């Protein structure tokens, strides 16, 4: 079982780019366009892999190290994140808070690289990304706290297992946690209404800003990292807050369906919602944090447990 789980986790390295690709395709269809194929991210990655990288004048080791470091963080995070409640024995543990730390390190590397170039647009994006992350981290921590309530543990495998069954749906805490985690997914993946992944206007870029200077394989690493971030938060959201199936094979099948459904949901949100003013984002995330705290309160008060 461990070996199969490990293979599935490693397969995520290859599967992850399909998530942003599928969201883009579904979004195009919802907007009445034909759009690109869901496999477009793979074509982009292949194209970038053949191109040479660029080192702008004056940049140093931090700029050069940031893309591999960010990708390495995401690779480790993939090994920590269980798929369908199972994880291979990589010897890295399965702790939710370690996962949060790795995502933060990737963010640090990219923002520091933006300083190394000194490009105003990159720094604008980095500053906004880190500002939103302040509220995003707090919300993420509260959502994980609510998700840890049934298992009394931050071991992701135990959390996923404890979130199975029918009785969990009687607890309001589960619903509150689901709402909070949905916002977490929006923040971490940088999708509307918080960020617009399709923007071509540098002034409105958040996640895309620090990528502007990169090219070739460096950019390929960074685009893959963004896709892996999609995979981790969406898979975690589905595993922790959506229905489970019995066996491993059945849960994998159900997970695939849930991922497709979530991609559709995010495409729908992207189609119907405009990007919100950046100054409004903390208020939205604050509402999420309040909902998570209410969930915590209902669980401790014993409602539905």
């Amino acid at each position, binding site marked *: 079982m461990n070996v199969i789980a490990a293979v599935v986790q490693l397969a995520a390295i290859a599967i992850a780019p399909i998530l942003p690709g599928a969201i883009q395709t579904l979004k195009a269809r919802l907007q009445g366009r034909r759009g690109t194929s869901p496999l477009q991210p793979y074509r982009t990655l292949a194209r970038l892999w053949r191109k*040479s990288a660029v080192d702008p004048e004056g940049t140093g080791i931090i700029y050069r190290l940031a893309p591999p470091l960010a990708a390495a963080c995401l*690779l480790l995070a993939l090994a920590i994140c269980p798929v369908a409640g199972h994880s291979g024995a990589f010897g890295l543990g*399965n702790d939710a808070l370690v996962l949060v730390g790795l995502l933060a390190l990737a963010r640090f590397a990219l923002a*520091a690289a933006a300083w*190394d170039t000194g490009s105003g647009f990159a*720094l604008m994006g980095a*500053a906004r990304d880190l500002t939103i992350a302040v509220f995003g981290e707090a919300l993420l921590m509260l959502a994980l706290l609510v998700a840890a309530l049934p298992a009394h543990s931050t071991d992701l495998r135990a959390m996923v297992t404890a979130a199975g069954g029918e009785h969990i749906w009687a607890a309001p805490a589960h619903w509150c946690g689901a709402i909070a985690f949905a916002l977490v997914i929006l923040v971490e993946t940088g999708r509307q209404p918080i960020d617009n992944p399709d923007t071509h206007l540098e002034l409105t870029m958040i996640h895309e800003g620090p990528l502007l200077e990169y090219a070739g394989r460096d950019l390929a690493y960074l685009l893959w990292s963004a896709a892996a971030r999609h995979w981790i938060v969406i898979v975690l959201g589905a595993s922790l807050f959506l229905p489970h199936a019995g066996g491993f094979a059945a849960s994998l099948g159900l997970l695939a369906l849930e991922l497709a459904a979530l991609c559709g949901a995010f495409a729908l949100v992207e189609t119907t919602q405009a990007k919100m003013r950046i100054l409004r984002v903390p208020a939205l995330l604050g509402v999420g944090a309040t909902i998570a705290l209410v969930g915590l309160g209902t669980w401790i008060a014993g409602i539905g447990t």
Partner: protein
Amino acid sequence: MGVLDAGALAGVAALASGGLLSAVNGRLRVGLAVQGAGMTLLGVVGVAVLTSGELLGAAFRSTISPTLGLDPLSGFFLAVLAITAVPTLLFARDSLPGSPGARAIGALTAGFLLALVGVLAARDVTSFLAFWELMTLVPAAAILAARREGSVRSAVYAYLAITHLGGAAVWIALLTLAHHGAIGDPSALAAAGSGAQTLVAIAALIGFGTKAGLIPLHSWLPRAHPVAPAHLSALMSGVMIKIALYGLIRVEFQWLGATPRWLGIALLAIGLLSSLGGVLWALMQHELKRLLAYHSIENVGIITLGLGASLLFADAHQPAWAAIAFAAALLHVANHAIFKALLFLGAGAFQRAVGSLELDRLGGLLRRMPWAGGAFLVGAIAIAGLPPLNGFASEWLTLQSLLHVALRAPLGVALAAGTALAGLAATAALALLCFVKVVGLVLLGQPRRPESARAVDPPLEMRAGMAVLAALCVLLGVVPGLVVPTLAGLAPGAHGGLARGVAISIPGTGSFPALALAIGLFALTALLVRLRGSHRSAPSPVWACGQPVVAALGWTSAAFTKPLRLVLEVIMRPQREIDVVRSGGIVQSVTYSADVSSRVDALMVEPTVRGGLRAAAVARRLQSGNVRTYAAYLLALVAGLLVLVRIGVLG
């Protein structure tokens, strides 16, 4: 007399003689080396006491005759003091000679270290209070020996005034404890009743909290720490404020008898306020040492959160988790001492190389000063709480502790712990934002001023001091599991149980295999760098969407934090003044000033100072200078006392 007693005495003797030697003309470097040897000996003794669990010298007693001794908790703090002080003294051997007042500062450094050791070794109330006051006064003298400007003097005055006013509460707490015979005997205060317990708990919180720099009693810290010489700033921020936490732990955890639940909640609230407030105001600073000083407030807040969680676990009868939360706090004490000392030493190196610590004037120093810059980068990543360095290990433990309080506690406590958990997560993200800014402005990009372009690495021993501290950041980051069980054993009521190993595996967590993560991170990064290959296209200018990247358009410290300042306008209340002088329709000059003032200063400190001055003005009227008036005062005093005796209030 055992080996350890002899070692401790030899260490103290070396420290004292090193101090005297430093004052001799031309012997400053030797004196500092002897001080370092003394601190090394004391550190070894501290580690020996910590690991063996034996008592050295006397035990605590409530008498007033001076006695000295060490127990494992003192041993731990002594070890932290030593691992911070030895590299710092090494650094000072190159940084101090030639600066104004060098010999006096060298001698006072030894005095300061002796006072710190004295507080840790004091076993009775007299020697504790004596060393405590010395610990406050000696660095003030050293700062005045180094700099004579009016602004520095006023900062030192504010430091002494605030810490002495707060320090009065330390006297109240300790003298009350001694009065009830409760120093070293928790049952005595419990017998004295809850009134005395509450008095001691609150007085210790105010007194030690002031010295630790907890908000809202922190106003002295960002004034005093930046004006000291680099190695003293490192010791003040790294160790002195931790010694205040040592006092807090002694009183609240060991001598109070039963710890009430409100104390745990209060520690959570104060810790949350300090960590969030400290890092928010640190973000708004544009001078490196001031920024680092505010970060000390943040980190003391994080330690306080761990202590609060520990009290709440003890209150809920979960000794295993109480010990883990206690270990989290102590580990952060050690970690913060190491990386904060490293960052202050780095600031000293930059100051020496560039002549300024204004963030917007530095830049590009990583390439020009690879040793100092590289070590500073390690410290910055550690303080930002990122894996695989030591800051992440202790923040992970603290986050786990708060999370598990929230999982198991009654409703109100759970909500408080949940809020504290979210606050600590936000604090970590803010620290990341802040140190991305610092690293970017100081180390990366192009030099913003010609002085930065000419900067070179400092001499060997300054580099060595920083390198040792950076190595410790890595070491404690990859094998925290070897230290944590020992620290958990120091918690009151702990009885082992935590497995010692490279990974920290605690039931109820997904385990934190720090070494495996660090190796994985390193190996994968190396692999990906190799996969990418070295093929690059011809060098090109920074694209920046076609805009020229010139220094005048470069991003500043204020610009990078602007989104946060806008989002938190309600709390920060930033002020901005732009003065445009026009004449004949042409702009002649533009002056710009912006400031984010401290809300605590505006709402609490300034009214207190105004009230104090007004009260002093009233009291001054009593001093007429007329002898007959004073005779009348005496007569009135005697008459008043007689009346009190007559009606039976006195005697």
